[in-house]
């Protein structure tokens, strides 16, 4: 799974300010819409929030991977946001989230693609060096370069 193919500089936010996880997800969904990944922003946001209600997507290490498969998605994407102030994500370890990865997958591709993106991303995030480099990155280009190399 080539994660870089799912990312562009317009869907990376390095200084996101949001009061809640819902607000943060909506801001990044707007960016996905502007970049042409979504056909129906509200439909996609609803899928992500419904999924979030079934159980937090906080995976520990102050990271969350919210995701939604929806007919409102035109093509698969991975949006990335670093938060100015950590926000509560109801993670199992109770720690607030500093960085999240928002996955969008079209409804018809949902099954396997979804799992492959999650696994590929997890295999990178499990490395502390990768997480630290992302947290230290100053530009969207840097973020993409780190994902390419690790």
């Amino acid at each position, binding site marked *: 799974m080539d994660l870089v193919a799912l990312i562009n500089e317009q869907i990376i936010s390095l200084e996101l300010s949001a009061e809640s996880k819902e607000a943060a997800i909506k801001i990044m969904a707007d960016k996905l819409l502007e970049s042409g990944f979504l056909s129906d922003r509200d439909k996609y946001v609803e899928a992500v929030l419904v999924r979030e209600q079934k*159980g937090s997507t906080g995976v520990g290490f102050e*990271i969350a*991977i919210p995701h939604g498969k929806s007919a409102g998605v035109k093509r698969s994407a991975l949006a990335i946001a670093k938060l100015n102030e950590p926000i509560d994500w109801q993670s*199992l370890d109770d720690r607030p989230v500093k960085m999240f990865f928002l996955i969008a997958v079209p409804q018809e591709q949902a*099954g396997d693609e*979804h*799992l492959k993106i*999650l696994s590929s991303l997890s295999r990178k995030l*499990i490395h502390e060096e990768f997480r630290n480099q992302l947290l230290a990155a100053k530009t969207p280009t840097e973020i993409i370069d780190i994902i390419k190399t690790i």
Partner: protein
Amino acid sequence: MLTKNATIRNQEGFHARPAQKFVELASKFTAHITVKKLDGAETDGKSILGLMTLELSKGSTISIQADGVDEEKAVDSLIQLVENKFGEE
């Protein structure tokens, strides 16, 4: 130390939500828990991110290993969770 095998039966595999349910249950036991794939990859059974790295789809076989005073109860409970599709379809 005790090890038993289980097969992933839910349609979408061992993705984020099953991983969370697994970790919630695993964390109730003091035993150290390791989840292994047949190809040799293994991870801490109390780490959501770790479990997601295994890319377990429907039909995959895993072995669940527990080491500690409550290892028997831990392995049996976790095997049951996996075999029951994590309570979802």
